[in-house]
């Protein structure tokens, strides 16, 4: 049995328009999106560009859009009932080549939120205080949340994208951190996040981070 995959092709170094190219790939039970991508690269087209590292769903480098939904390609299996699937680069990122996105704009925004522990003025004394930030510490910077922002909400990304939002929540819930992060979140536009947007993004997050909780917390 073979399934058809429409794979996004584009090279920012050349001037041609992006296209979806069709590849026919034999289905194997349990096959992941990454298996499909590697099959295409190995047997059908050696010019296909993609990222992967760990196959364990933990490095955060292999995010793609599968049928317009952001997923980690290494830990997402293909549904054999879908005869045609599309695989594209993460949405809301500039594309560098094929399935590889340019991370620069996202990292630039990320650095603006000071994504590190600073002005340490406290210590961890209980399990409870240790665990407050734990859900947000699970972020692997894969960018799936950013790619999951839908068209009508897109403007929120330019102010404060969800990956940066989670990082702020991570340090707001860390008793050691001494930066006034909630004020920063207000200035950056946390108000434009509704709990609904938060919920929808939580569903997209491969690490199951409760983004709606982060939104609520920063809106307090």
């Amino acid at each position, binding site marked *: 049995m073979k399934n058809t995959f429409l794979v996004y092709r584009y090279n920012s170094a050349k001037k041609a328009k992006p296209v979806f190219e069709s590849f026919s790939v034999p289905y194997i039970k349990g096959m992941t999106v990454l298996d499909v991508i590697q099959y295409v690269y190995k047997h059908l087209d050696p010019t296909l560009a993609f990222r992967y590292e760990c196959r364990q769903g933990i490095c955060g480098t292999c995010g793609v859009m599968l049928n317009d939904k952001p997923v980690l390609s290494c830990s997402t299996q293909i549904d054999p009932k879908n005869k045609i699937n599309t695989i594209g680069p993460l949405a809301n990122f500039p594309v560098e080549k094929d399935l590889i996105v340019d991370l620069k704009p996202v990292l630039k925004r990320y650095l603006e939120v000071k*994504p590190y*522990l600073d002005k340490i003025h406290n210590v961890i004394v209980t399990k409870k205080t240790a665990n407050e930030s734990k859900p947000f510490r699970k972020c692997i910077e894969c960018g799936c949340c950013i790619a999951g922002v839908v068209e009508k909400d897109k403007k929120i990304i330019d102010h404060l994208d969800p990956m940066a939002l989670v990082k702020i929540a991570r340090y707001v819930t860390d008793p050691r951190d001494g930066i006034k992060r909630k004020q920063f979140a207000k200035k950056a536009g946390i108000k434009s996040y509704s709990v609904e947007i938060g919920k929808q993004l939580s569903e997209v997050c491969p690490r199951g981070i409760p983004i709606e909780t982060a939104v609520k917390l920063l809106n307090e």
Partner: protein
Amino acid sequence: MNYKTIKTEILVIGAGGAGLRAAVEAKKRGADVYLIGKEVLGCAHTGMAMGGMNAAMVKPATPAFHAQITIEGGYFINNYKLVKIFTDEMPARVFDLEKYGVIFDRVDNGEFYTWAGPKQKYPLNICVGDYTGREMMQGLVDEARKLKIKYTDEFFISKLLVSDRSIIGAIGIHLKTGTLQIFLAKAVILATGGAGRMYEVTTNAASNTGDGYAMALDAGAELVDMEMTQFHPTGMAYPPSSRGVLVTEKVRAHGGILRNKNGERFMKRYYPKEMELAKRDEVSRSIYQEVSEGRGTKHSAVYLYVNHWPKEKILEQIPDVYEQYKNVGVDISKEPMEIYPSMHHVMGGVKIDEWGKTNIEGLFAAGEVAGGIHGANRLGGNSVAEGQVFGRRAGMAAIKYIKSIRYQNPQRKIIGEEIQRINAFLQKNKGIPPHEIEDALKKTMWNNVGIFRDEKRLLKAKKEIKALMEKAKKMRVRTRIRERNRDLQDCLEIANMLKTAEAVIEAALLRKESRGAHSRVDYPKMLDEWTKNIVVKKENSKIVTNIVSVITK
């Protein structure tokens, strides 16, 4: 080919736990540091460490106890001096990591949560759920960002530049553009990780291709204990795309049970006292025996059960293992996992002293690429740990070293030869696609240089690797595109894996006994006269081996 040159006092090659720690230390102490990573910053293999990290944080564990079981676990060929420094300094490195943002799991009164791995009469493993390495990476990357450390990721260093047995820099290509770049450096810290990808089944990330071992050998550095390759007993066995993926030791340490297809708790046959918590080499051999004697599942595996745990315990202790199996349609709170050993760690590596110094002036090494700390078998939780101690030390030592050093320009001839080597893969009209060589290499290593070894299979492997090295001269890319040419990267990585494999096999042939991860069917006993280390180096482009005494003081 045109190339740019960048000058930096200290070049750190590899952006995993050890490389980041080295860069942080050197930068904090005022050096001009440049960090290079082959993968996107933060995505290195350290992040795949699951269960925990060893440090004597909670009594009755002490650094002396940590040192003792590390040496016993390593079957007495560890470098004792390195072990002592490692275990003494480890608690301070834990507090460093917490300053970088990491929060290790706590118990109610705020003390570290600890659990006991094999040999740990007193628990040493601290952890963050079962994604300890990922949180460590996050903390280290956060700290690197805070310190504004200069870095280039997705960059492949292909050769170390050496002049008169001193390091002067390195050369490599941008994976994004295929353009060449030279780094002139006063000191280089090698932190390139391991070589799991040379085996068919591995827990390792794709980037672990032995680049550091190969480049160090070519630079004239000595490697030690290369015959010691660790197979983690519990890798995922099914489906094929997950084959080899790590299932943490934390599962067995918290009461996970191994059974064969007949439901027998087979560990009682091999290690009735330790059972599931025998050492990694011991459990791996036991599973191998069960499966090879016909008591494995239809996927040539054994079962690992946690379905007797309360679901909350599964979700708190091993949330990622739960997800890993959920993603492939197995609910481990109801069904068993199918597991089989998977190549996990290279105990050997570049021979270093307590400051990460190698025998090449100005070349330092830390993390998995360095050897000597783990001896013949590494205890779980000691790898991510040790990288923190020796990463920091390499950073400190490099700073001291560069004070009296001037930049040196490399010979044009050497640069020209490396450019020629890289271009040859691109320019050939006929040849062999790289993945053909890689697939053959993986099979050779898995089938002949695995959990059990003997002279016949090792000699077969030696012959096959030699033939593959010849064949690899005909490797060529299937596309000449400059941007993101994965085939070109593969060609360079395969050359490195072949050189690493050759070093492993030469040392494995020489060690005519069984010790730790090195199990010779033809020499099944551990022998006193082999309480020695094997050093591998290159002389006139040929591999030579030496037997040396263990450093016990």
